[in-house]
C-alpha cells in the first residue's frame, strides 16, 4: 500500500464505524495563548473536553497537521538524528467524546 492508500484506508475504516471525518485544523494556532502551533489532534477539540462547548458528534476521525517545535512537545533536536521523529507530521486521530476506555482498548 502506498501512503495515500494507507491514509484513505484509515479514514474509510472509521467512517464505516460511524465516525464523522472532520478536516484538519490549521497548523498555526490563532486563538489559544497557551499553544503556538497545533501539536496534537485533540487541540481543536479542547473546548469540547473542557465543557465550554457542546458536542456535535460523539465519534470523530481525521488526519491533523501537527508541528512539535516549541513548548512541552518539542522534537526539533531529534530530527535528522533518528528515523522516527519529525517537526511536522500528520496525526491520524480517532476521538470519542463522553465515552469510556472500552471503546478503544481492543485489537481487531
Amino acid at each position, binding site marked *: *500500500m*502506498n*501512503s495515500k492508500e*494507507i491514509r484513505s484506508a*484509515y479514514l474509510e475504516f472509521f467512517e464505516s464505524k460511524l465516525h464523522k471525518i472532520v478536516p*484538519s485544523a*490549521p*497548523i*498555526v494556532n*490563532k*486563538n*489559544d*495563548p*497557551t*499553544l*503556538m*502551533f497545533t*501539536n496534537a*489532534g*485533540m*487541540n481543536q*477539540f*479542547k*473546548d*469540547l*473536553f*473542557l*465543557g*465550554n*462547548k*457542546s458536542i456535535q458528534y460523539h465519534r470523530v476521525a481525521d488526519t*491533523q497537521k501537527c*508541528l512539535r*517545535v516549541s513548548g*512541552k512537545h518539542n522534537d*526539533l533536536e531529534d530530527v*535528522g*538524528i*533518528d*528515523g*522516527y521523529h*519529525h*517537526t*511536522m*507530521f*500528520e*496525526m*491520524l*486521530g*480517532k*476521538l*470519542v467524546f*463522553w*465515552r*469510556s*476506555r472500552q471503546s*478503544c*482498548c*481492543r*485489537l481487531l
Partner: protein
Amino acid sequence: MDKSRIYVSVFGGDEAEGLEADEEAADLWKKWIAPDRVLYFDKKDNFWEMGDTGPCGPCSEIHVDLRPDSERAQKDGAVLVNADDPNVIEIWNLVFIQFNRKADGKLVELPAKHVDTGMGFERLCRVVQGVASNYDSDLFKPYFDFISEATGKKYTGSYDLNNKNDIAFRVVIDHIRAVTFCIADGQLPSNNGAGYVIRRILRRAARYYFSFLDYKEPLLCQLIPIIGESFGDIFPEVKAQLGLIENVIREEEKSFLRTLDLGLKRMDQLDPADKNLGGQLVFELYDTFGFPVDLTRLIATEKGWTIDEAGFNAALQIQKERSRADAQKSYGDWMIVREGSDVQFIGYDQLQAENSYILRTRTLQQKGKESYQIVLDVTPFYPEGGGQVGDTGYLEIDGERITVLNTMKENDLVLHFVDKLPETLDAPVKAFVDSNRRAFIEYNHSATHLMHAALRQVLGTHVQQKGSLVNESYLRFDFSHFQKVEPADLRKIENIVNEAIRRDIPRREARNLPVEQAKAAGAMMLFGEKYGEEVRMITFDPDFSIELCGGCHVNSTGQIGYFKIISEGAIAAGVRRIEAITALEAEHWVQSQLDQLDELKEALKTSGDPVKAVLKLQEDLKLHKKQVDELMIAQVASLQHELKHEFVMHEGIAVLGKVLPFGDHKSIKNLAHQLSQNQSSYAIVFGWIDSDKPQLVVQVGESLAKAGVHAGNIVKESVKIMNGGGGGQPFYATAGGSDTSKLEETVKHALSLIEKSIQSLSNSDK
C-alpha cells in the same frame, strides 16, 4: 500486524498526583493480548498533557517491535519499550482525557470523560510498508531523489552521528514540510512569535545544506512543488498557493545565505587571542548573522580554533532572561462564578445586553501589573478576530460601572478585558458596546470587503488575503501580488469601491449556512482559517463581493461615505500592503489636503493653478541663480585683484586673513586657489556669512603643510569660537558655525594659530 510484535503500555499511577494505576485499561487489554505484553509505566511516559495547562489524562500506548526475528529471539522486546530503541517504537497513543491541568498545577476532574487517540501517520507508513525508517517510505522518496539530483550527493540511510550528509538530507526534508505548511496556513516568517520559530527552522535547514550538502543556492524553495503534488488531495492549500510559498521561502533563503556569507567573512577577519573565539564573539555571530553555535564551532575547527562555549551560553542566557522577563505572562486559574457553556454572542444584532451573567473571571499578571478578564453568558462585545479589533465599552453590575478595555477570544470563550473586577459577581450585568467606535470599525470592515473584490477585478484573481487589520481609524490589507500596484491601478480600485459605496448596496447576511453551499455560491475562502460546517456569509451584491466572515458590517454600503487609499508597499516577497481610510477619517484627510493646497496658493500669491505658479517660480529661480553666479564671478575677480596686495609677510611666509563681505563655498574655494597660484609658502584664512551662517576656510601652501601646519586642525580649533564643528585636510579645510557675531574673532584666532606655528617653525630653524 503480528500480535507477537505488539506491546501495550498503561499508566502505573502517581502518588504525588494522587492517581492510581489504570487497571481498567490493563484488564481490557488482557482480553486481546497476552498479559505479559501489558506493561506499566509512570507519569513521564503514560500521562499525556498537551501543554502546561489544559485537558489531560492517563494514556495507553501501542508499541511495535520491528526488529528482525534473530534480534527478537536474543532480547525480549518488552525491555525496549520506551527505551529509545529506533526499532521498538510507539505507534498509537490512546489518551483518556479526564482531567484539566490548572495554572496552579492542580488536576481537576472534567465534567465528562473522553477518549482521544492519535497515531503517527509517517510511522504507520513505515510499519505497513516494512521499511527501515519513516524516511524510507514512499512519502519521502521524491524529496531524496530531487536533492540528490540537485546537489550531486548520495543518501545512504545511515544513522551514524558522524554521517552529516545523511542527517542533512533528513533535516532539510523534515524542515521544509514544517515551514511550507505554516506559510500555507497564513503564517509568514518574521522576527517574533510563531513567525520567528518558522524562520529559525528554515535557517536550520539552510545551514545544513550549505555546510553538509555543499549547496550554496536556495534549495528549499525548489522542493515546494513536491509537497504541493504529494498533498494535493488531502491538504490542497499548498498546491493552491505554490507561487507565493516558493517566493517567500526563496527570499528568506537568499537573505540568510547572504548573512551566512557575511558571517563567514566576519570570521575570516577575526584573529582571536590563543586561537580561542570568545563567548561574546560567538554570540555576535549568533545574534547578528544568525549563526547557530554548532556552525561557528565547525568553522572554528576548520581554522584550528576553539570556541568559548561557556561564555556564549552565558551571553545567550542573559538575552533569554531579558526576553523572558519581557514576555512573561502568568495566568491565574479561572474562577467559576456560574456553571454554563456555549457563550452567546449577540453583537451582530445588538450593541447592548440587558440581562447577562458572569460565568467566570480570571486575573492575569504581566510585568508586575495585574489585569482582569470576565466571561459573560451573553455578550454584545465582538472579540478580536478576522483582523477586526475587539470592542470596547462598559458593564454595569449592581450599580457599579466597569470599563471594558478590549475583547478577545480564547478558543470559544469571549474574554472581556476590564479595568477591575466588580464587587458583586453574581448579579445581572448590563453590557454596553461603544457604539460610535463600533460604527467606524464596521465602515472599515465593509470597505475591506469591497476593496478585496476591487483588487481581484483590477489585478487578477491571484490576489489572496494574507493579513488584515480593521480598527476604528483605518484598514490595512495584505495580499499576494508580485509587483508594485501602479498609481493608475490604485485609482481604479478607489473608483470601483467608491462606486459600490454610492450604489448603497444592502448587506446580505447568511448565518449558519452549510459550508458547501457557501462554496457553491462562490464565496472567497481563506487558507489557514478554521471554518466550521456552518459558516456566515456576507454579500454585497452577489456579482461583486461574497466573503465568509465573522466580523461586523454596515447595513448598506452608503454608510461608508467615502473610501481613500493612503499607502501601498511591500511587506514580504510577493506580499503587498494597502492602507486605506473611510468615512470621517477620509473626509478629514481630504480636507487637510485641500487646506494645504489653499495655504500653498496663498504662499504663492495666486488664485489660479498652483502647479503653473510653482513651475514658473522654479524657472525664475534658475534664471536668478545664473545671474548671481555671473555676478559672483565678477566680484571675486575684483576681490582677487585687491587681496593680492594684502598678504603680510611673516618670517618669509605670505599670510592673508580676511572677513569677506559675501561669497559661497564654491567661489571662495576658487578665490583661495587663484590667490595661491605661483606660491608655495603661504596661508590664507577667510571668513564669510552664507545664508545667515558664519563660515571659515583655511588653506595653507604645500611647504607649510609639510612642515606640520595643519589646516584641518586649525579650523577645528578655531571654529569652536563661533559654535561650530568641522575640519578637513592638511592643505584645505572648512567648517560652519552658528554665532555670526564671533566670525571676526574666529578668523583672528585662526590667523594667530598660523602665526604661532610659523614662529615656532622659524625658532626651531635657528
